C-alpha cells in the first residue's frame, strides 16, 4: 500500500528542516571574510567607498539570515519555494542580475565619458600642433594651410 502524502505538509517539512550548525559556521566565516576583503580593498585604494554599500549590505544581510534562519523560512513561504536553499539561490541570482545591469549602466556612462575625453584630447592636440607649426601660442582654431585659415589671413 502506497502511503498518501499531503504536499502542503511535505513542503512545510522541507521548509522547517533544521539548518546544520556546520553550514551556519561556514556561511558566517565566508561573510566575515568577504567583509574583511572589502575593507582591505578600500584601504588599498582598489575599491572606491561609493561601490561598497551594496557588498557590505549583502554580507551583513547574509549573516543576519544565517543567525536568524527563520527569516529565510518566512521568505521561502512568501515566494512559494519548497526549500530555503531554493530561496537563497533565487534571491542570489536576482541580486546578480540587478548588479550586472547596474554595472552595465555605469559602464555605458563611463564609455561616453571616455569617448568625450578622447575626442577633446584629439582636438586639443591638433590645435596645439597647428599653433606650434605657426610658432605662436595655442590660440588658433584652424590648422596651418587650410583654405579657411588662408581666407582669414587675406
Amino acid at each position: 500500500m502506497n502511503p498518501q502524502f499531503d504536499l502542503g505538509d511535505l513542503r512545510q517539512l522541507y521548509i522547517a528542516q533544521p539548518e546544520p550548525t556546520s553550514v551556519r559556521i561556514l556561511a558566517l566565516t565566508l561573510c566575515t571574510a568577504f567583509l574583511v576583503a572589502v575593507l582591505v580593498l578600500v584601504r588599498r585604494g582598489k575599491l572606491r567607498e561609493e561601490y561598497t554599500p551594496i557588498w557590505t549590505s549583502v554580507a551583513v544581510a547574509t549573516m543576519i539570515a544565517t543567525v536568524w534562519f527563520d527569516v529565510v523560512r518566512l521568505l521561502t513561504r512568501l515566494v512559494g519555494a519548497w526549500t530555503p536553499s531554493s530561496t537563497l539561490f533565487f534571491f542570489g541570482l536576482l541580486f546578480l542580475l540587478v548588479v550586472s545591469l547596474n554595472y552595465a549602466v555605469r559602464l555605458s556612462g563611463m564609455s561616453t565619458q571616455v569617448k568625450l575625453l578622447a575626442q577633446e584630447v584629439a582636438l586639443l592636440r591638433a590645435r596645439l600642433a597647428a599653433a606650434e607649426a605657426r610658432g605662436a601660442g595655442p590660440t588658433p582654431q584652424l590648422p596651418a594651410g587650410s583654405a579657411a585659415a588662408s581666407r582669414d589671413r587675406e
Partner: protein
Amino acid sequence: MAPPTETIRGSLLVIPALNEARSIAQVIRGVRDSGAEVDVLVIDDGSRDDTARIARESGAAVVSHPFNLGYGAALQTGYKYAVRAGYATVVQMDADGQHDPADIPRLLAPVCGGEADLVIGSRFVQASDYEMGSVRSGARRFFTFLLVLLGGPRVADPTSGLQALSRPVFRFCCSDFYPTDFPDIDVLLLLHRQGFRIHEVPVRMRPSPPERRTMHAGLRALYYPYKMLLSTFRSWLTPRASPLAD
C-alpha cells in the same frame, strides 16, 4: 560682456580613416584635383599604420584619436572640429576611395542653397551599376522600409557615407545621442523628427576594395541589425521637440 560672435567659414570635408595608409593620399589628391572648395580634415581613428602622417603630408589637417573610438565617433569629432572652427557646411566621405570627390559640389549645392539640411549621396536613387551583396541589399531594403514605416524620410540609400550637412545638423550631431559605431537610419529618423530636411542626390560609387574589412563584416554583421533596430526604436521614441536640439 557680450558673447563672442561666430565667424562662419566655408565647407569642411571630413574623412574618417582607420588604417587607410594605402588609399588616403589618393583620396586627398582626388579632392584637390576635383576643384572642390573645401578644407580637408582627416580623422585618424586610432590607426596602427601611417594614415595620419600620409594624410598630413598630403596637405590635409589631421585629428588623431588616441585610440580607436568607432566610425560614428570619428565623424562626430569632425563635426566638433567644424563647429569650433566655424564652418558653415560639412561634407563627409569615406577614406577607401569608394566615393568620387567630383560629387562634392552637387552634394553641397542643396545645403548651401537652403533647400536641404542633410544631403545623402545615393547609389540607388537612379539606376546604378553598383553591386551590393544580396544579404546587405536585403538589409538595406528592410531598413529603408522600416524608416518609412516609423514616419521617417523616404531614402533609397540610408547607409551611404557620402553626405553633406548644414551647420545646424552637424551641431546637433555633436550631442551624446550620436552613435559611436553605425550612424544610419537611427540618425536619419531622429534628424527627420527634429524637422531637418533630408534630400538625396544620385552619385556613382566604386565598390569597396575587396581586402578591406568593412565595419559590417564578421560578427558585427549579426550585431548591426540588432543594434540598428534598438537605436531606431530609441530615435522613434525621442520627442520631436527634443532638448537635444539645443
